[in-house]
């Protein structure tokens, strides 16, 4: 038996070529460490990506990897997973790769609930092609293709996933490995398509676009870390989210002395899709950003169903010689 692998063993011999300060570095490090922590087997682990800065990820993971074409990683991963269900497959994509050109494949891999993990590095920009606005860019984003500010309403990655029928939706922040690592682990354990949006800082083309909530100093006020069965509290428990049953909206209330009792605060139920919708669509200007596993509703994965309904569960039981003779055969003498 070999010594357990360390994070370093999951690094390749290739020089990492992201811009200095890019959030991708932190995610890479967190992933390498997570691999070691969960005792991943590099021989049975595959990273599949599309095209983009984020999609260079597989080159840096000392596992199997496939840097495919723009937007199509989910489709490659689906075929791979069907070919060998024993593999642990991670799809790495960006907001452009996954939500612009690749929206359809993301939709369908989620809908089918293929047993793999999808990491969407959302930097709200096309990094690799030098900074055009993406489907998650905010209204008014000025880029070379939107000199007067973008006018396309941004997509919420999480709401999209939910609409696609996702059974696992989570969120994390590139540089917050402490919170991101458990999310990665949970995704890996989930039998189905686990969708994780990672807020990633593109220091060159969209610097600090998430500053309103990623800043470590203000994090307590600007983030709400959800946990199944726990009340939706933040700011060290001094604030919480409460349902207004009239408007069906979540409201921020002060908790404790002078404020609302903790029992007023909605308890997170990760199996509730309506709650997930509320959390995933909270306006980011006025609410804290929900992070962690927002939705998890296990059901049969596509892979399992695929082989369960396959005529012979994937075993070769017949002979072509016999198949040729099915139906009416006659003999010429």
């Amino acid at each position: 038996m070999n010594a357990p692998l360390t994070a370093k063993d999951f690094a390749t011999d290739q020089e990492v070529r992201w811009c200095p300060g890019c959030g991708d570095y932190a995610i890479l490090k967190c992933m390498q460490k997570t691999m070691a922590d969960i005792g991943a087997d590099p021989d049975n682990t595959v990273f599949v990506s599309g095209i983009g800065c984020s999609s260079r990820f597989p080159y840096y993971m000392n596992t199997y990897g496939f840097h495919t074409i723009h937007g199509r990683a989910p489709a490659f991963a689906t075929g791979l997973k069907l070919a060998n269900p024993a593999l642990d497959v991670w799809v790495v994509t960006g907001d452009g790769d996954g939500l612009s050109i690749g929206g359809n494949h993301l939709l369908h891999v989620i809908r089918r609930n293929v047993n793999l993990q999808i990491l969407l590095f959302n930097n709200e920009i096309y990094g690799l092609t030098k900074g055009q606005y993406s489907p998650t860019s905010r209204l008014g984003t000025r880029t070379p293709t939107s000199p007067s500010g973008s006018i396309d309403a941004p997509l919420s990655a999480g709401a999209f996933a939910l609409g696609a029928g996702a059974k696992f939706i989570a969120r994390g922040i590139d540089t917050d490995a402490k919170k991101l690592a458990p999310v990665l682990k949970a995704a890996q354990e989930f039998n189905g398509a686990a969708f994780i949006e990672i807020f990633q800082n593109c220091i060159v083309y969209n610097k600090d676009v998430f500053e309103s909530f990623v800043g470590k100093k203000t994090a307590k006020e600007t983030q709400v870390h959800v946990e199944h069965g726990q009340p939706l509290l933040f700011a060290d428990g001094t604030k919480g989210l409460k349902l207004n049953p009239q408007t069906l909206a979540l409201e921020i209330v002060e908790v404790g002395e002078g404020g609302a009792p903790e029992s007023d605060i909605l308890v997170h139920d990760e199996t509730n899709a309506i709650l997930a919708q509320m959390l995933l669509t909270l306006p980011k200007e006025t609410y804290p950003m929900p992070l962690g596993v927002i939705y998890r509703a296990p059901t049969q994965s596509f892979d399992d169903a695929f082989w369960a309904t396959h005529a012979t569960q994937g075993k070769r039981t017949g002979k072509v010689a016999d198949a040729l003779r099915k139906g009416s055969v006659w003999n010429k003498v």
Partner: protein
Amino acid sequence: MGKITPENQSVVVRFAGDSGDGVQLLGAQFAESTALAGADFSTFPDFPAEIRAPVGTTFGVSAFQINLGARRISTAGDEPDVLVAFNPAALKVNLPLIRKGALIILNTDAFTARNFSKAHIAADQRETGELDDYQVVEIDMSTQTLEAVKPLGLSKSDAEQSKNFWALGAVLWMFGRSRTPIEDWTKKKFAKKPEILGGNLAALNAGHAFAETAELSAEIPQFVIGEAPMNAGEYRTITGAEALALGLAAAGELANRDIMFCSYPITPASPVLHHLARMGDLGVATFQAEDEIAACCAAIGASFGGKIGVTSSSGPGIALKTEAIGLAMSAELPLVIVNSQRGGPSTGLPTKTEQSDLYQAVYGRNADAPLPVIATAGPGDCFDAAIEATRIAVRHMTPVFLLTDGYIANAAGPWALPDMADFEPILSNTPPVINGDATSEPTAVKRAIWSRDPSSFGRPWTAPGMAGLAHRIGGLEKDIATGDISYDADNHQAMSELREKKIEAVADFIPDQDVIQGETKGPVAVVGWGSTHGAIWRAVNDVREQGYDVAQIHLRYLSPLPKNLGRLLSSYDKVILPEMNMGQCATLLRDKLGLEVIQLNKVSGQPFKISEIVDVIKKNYPGKKQAAE
């Protein structure tokens, strides 16, 4: 009319009626009986483009054509000798297709004012003189059918459904065929619907009896078609689509790897998917993707995973796969791409046939991205072609185009069952054994993964899950030795040359081009590829019997071409190339061999008629031409 033994020992029969008239079943059963009688035959169903058009309309007409004979039959026939028309619309649509003087059998019950109006027919065709040149037999088939099944107490509409069996009975009599096997089949097929079964059997017998009765036998001729000379052995009827599906399954068996068939429905490619969806026990899994791009990518993903990835579509769908195919080529992964060609351009004529995606297969990618391209010549041949395509893909680690078309997919004929023991196993280059694990020397692993076989240039097929071989691949240019991303100028040049050499190397593994009929040199050769095989065969055979020295050459391998092809073709004074496009294979021969051919291009959505090919041969035959001048 008595007994007819046709001069050329073959007869073309066409059944035509409304989509709901059961014409396809009628045709298939007649073909079955033809097979059992030992004749050769070829069938082609002619479906309407619409799913189920309103009853009685011209665009709702469904037809089934069969050419049968006591000699080798290579096409479904140019001009039918017999037309069975179930309604005026069917007559209207099919009259232009049949031979002058042909026998027409009509269901008079359908010749009603209502049906004329539905088919936009101004006057009853039987009264306008337009049928004067034909032998017309009018039968009140619906009435006869109702009469026959009356004792069973079926509803009128259910009862009338059996009229295709009534017609079948009559036709069986015409060809002197036994009803027993048809009865057996009918009993099995409709076992769960005893009323329908009863109706069908009663109608079958009634039709037979009707034809047999004295009054009519004077009017309905009997055709005498003997057994065709065919090799001894087991036979079955097979369509191109089914043979292709079985061929892929066979390739999987020969490679001892599962087939992962990823597709998205499209006419006329879908039937291959449908057949394979039922071949799970043969190591086949099918995946219906969200679109053609995903289908192709999933197949490549499967190949990366060590299974044989196959994807399938027709022209417009293949166009969508182009980018992904480039990746498979760049990453050197095996992939079989089946293109069931149809009428184009754009959406074109989905239900019609054409062989116009050759440019797309050979040249239709961004950048220098050469790929092997092979074509099937007919329904049964799809089996061998599928095996061959897979073999090339696995040996050379490359995507391979397999071209078939709408005609081949749906046409059928007797097929001598192959013996699986006759096929060589499909061997892949074995993955390197690296003594190690995740910490093994990375460069050694990479070099091993990209070490290519010196003759095929195929690399080992390494897949995730194999111990100690973890590596990364992609579509960026790769270092020729390690596969690492490389922006180096010399390396890119070397890789571009390697990719070309690799495809050229396929020519070292394929057989020399053979000559199907005729000599290896002479005044004229007719070259074909794909589904023109049958029409060319018959045309060349016919003119050869008339004393013309003409050879037939048929290309399976289009890229690369067989090494001897240039030499072979140059040994004829003239080379004629009929193809169902505007001259795509002609371009290929000019490009690769610098060879000019006489083109016969047909782009009408219809297969070649034998007469069209015969005409062009005679027109260009040097001796005759001189004589005529």
